[in-house]
């Protein structure tokens, strides 16, 4: 890591990453809806108004498909889907086109593109603006999936994602946009497939992604003196750094996975599968996945909060896991 750092918000860290990659590589451009007038991206728009930022009509399927074609022919698009929920209307270019072209062409075409989208709930926007759909993309061979939890990871992962030779789904969290943190100066890259231990601990491993990392860290703080919690953030779900998770489990033997998304069929379940296959003997008790309830998200605040995983649930789950057997 660079010796010096600068403070950035999570949102600005992403913009800085894209701006730096655009300056470094002529072929990088951004494309999406409403990306010109958004306040925190003003500089980006000004700097690249002529070529580098393409503000589109509301045509997710069209412009994402266009980005796939551009990626096949020498460019590196960053396609911006305004809400993760809107991925439903451009599943074809992502799942059937971007993810498949490399293999279907016998490796003769590559699709170096980033599909960047804010996911997550907690903003009182009801069922169609509150989803965490990462598991769909984890389930789709040919895609890589990253979910940064800090400004430093947000920047480093975006820069790495842009340099990948295949499609990367980059899911930022809408509640993290304003959080601030130190970001290393210079050409800061975080590799895909490298987890980070966000807090060291001895008794239980909590694997958490995106916004859930912050809830897990709060829970760990609450449990100080009672349970020593290690928090591991995979940072990318595909590829998944199972080694770092197993290493943590070889110390703690106890596992809790926390995510924003509903638990059923989720990315957390996939992490548990890999732990069971590769590290069952490390486990000293039952594992759990804590996530959202398996329901469409209701609007009203008390209802929405009840449907989302919270810090006290994590605290309780950790206690249960540590007291079992």
């Amino acid at each position: 890591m660079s010796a010096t750092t600068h403070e950035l918000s999570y949102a600005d860290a992403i913009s800085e990453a894209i701006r730096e990659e655009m300056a470094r590589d002529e072929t990088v451009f951004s494309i999406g809806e409403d990306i010109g007038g958004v306040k925190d991206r003003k500089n980006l728009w000004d700097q690249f108004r002529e070529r580098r930022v393409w503000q589109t009509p509301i045509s997710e399927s069209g412009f994402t498909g266009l980005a796939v074609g551009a990626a096949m022919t020498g460019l590196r698009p960053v396609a911006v889907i305004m809400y993760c929920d809107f991925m439903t209307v451009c599943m074809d270019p992502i799942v059937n086109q971007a993810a498949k072209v490399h293999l279907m062409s016998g490796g003769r075409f590559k699709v170096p593109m980033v599909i960047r989208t804010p996911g997550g709930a907690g903003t009182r926007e009801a069922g169609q603006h509150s989803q965490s759909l990462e598991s769909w993309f984890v389930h789709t061979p040919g895609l890589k999936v990253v979910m940064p939890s800090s400004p430093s990871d947000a920047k480093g992962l975006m820069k790495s994602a842009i340099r990948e030779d295949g499609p990367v789904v980059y899911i930022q969290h809408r509640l993290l946009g304003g959080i601030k943190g130190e970001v290393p100066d210079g050409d800061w890259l975080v590799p895909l497939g490298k987890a980070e231990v966000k807090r060291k601990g001895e008794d239980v491993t909590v694997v958490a992604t995106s916004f859930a990392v912050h809830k897990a860290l709060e829970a760990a703080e609450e449990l100080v003196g009672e349970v020593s919690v290690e928090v591991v953030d995979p940072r990318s779900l595909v590829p998944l750094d199972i080694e770092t998770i197993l290493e943590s489990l070889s110390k703690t033997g106890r596992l809790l996975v926390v995510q924003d998304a509903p638990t059923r069929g989720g990315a957390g379940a996939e992490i548990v599968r890999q732990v069971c296959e590769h590290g069952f003997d490390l486990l000293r008790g039952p594992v759990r996945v804590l996530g959202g309830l398996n329901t469409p998200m209701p609007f009203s605040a008390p209802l929405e909060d009840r449907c989302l995983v919270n810090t006290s649930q994590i605290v309780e789950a950790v206690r249960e896991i540590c007291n079992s057997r």
Partner: protein
Amino acid sequence: MTMEPDHDKLVEMLRRMHRIRFFEQKAKTLYDYEYRLRGDDEETARAKGVIEGALHLAIGHEGTEVGTCAALNDDDYVTSSHRGHGHAIAKGADSKLMMAELMGRETGYSRGCGGSMHIFDPDLGLMGGNGIVGGQIPLAAGGAFSALYRGTKQVAVAFFSDGASNQGTFHETLNMASLWRLPVIFLCENNLYAASTPSTITLSIPDIADRGAGYGIPGVVVDGQDIMAVFECVSAAVSRARAGEGPTLIESKTYRFLPHTAGGSEHNNPGELEEWLKRDPILLFESWLLERGHMTSDDQSGLRQEVEDEIEAAEAFGKASLFPKFENMPTPSGVEL
């Protein structure tokens, strides 16, 4: 007015029409459905060079396919549909590598990973056929966008059908292409059927070309059986695109002489077929070449024989090629299978 192609190019156009026709006829005879009818088991059939899976033939479309690609340069882009053998061959694809791909062999264009619907070749600007009806339309706009961005004079053609013109991607892409004056040609082969559904019950207006007006794009109807008419029409659209004047929507009225899939049974409408067969694009072009003195009938039968032999050689090449090895499958790096 487009300059008429020189003699060699005209002969090459006819050669490619034959190449498509003979290729597709050969593919049909090698199709596994035919083999199943003969009672071969899977292993025996595969060893004989059987073509498995889906096979969508476009016999009858050759005038549009070749007429369009004759107006393009090698480095121009083409995206294609599930019915795309002709687009690839018209753009210059080698029948050997095509046949090997259909047979699932490692020497095929996509190393046996794509098959009939997914012929890719970056050197020929072939951005692949597409198994998703309408999926290829924005991809072509992406190729055109890329050309504009990189400052080249390349253009892109999206081949699609009356069926795909009813997909949302058609609307979204035409709007963007018009807004950004992308050098793209939307080439709709209206063969009157989407699978077996007649376009009369799926299109709200008779001419798809008229939809161009809704996007400020010129919409042109052309006789798809008349290769020279298609060539003229596409050449004008290409000039327009290269001059930075934006996209054109071309609706080529054509007809598929065979059912939707090679495994399909009866044709939709035998009476209608009979009428269209009278306007077989290859026969029409042969007459045109004869009348103008570009070729004699001896020249033409010689050319047919040459291409027929070539397709026999393509079959032999495919059969002699090895099946791909799993270890060599081109999977993305850094992700375990």
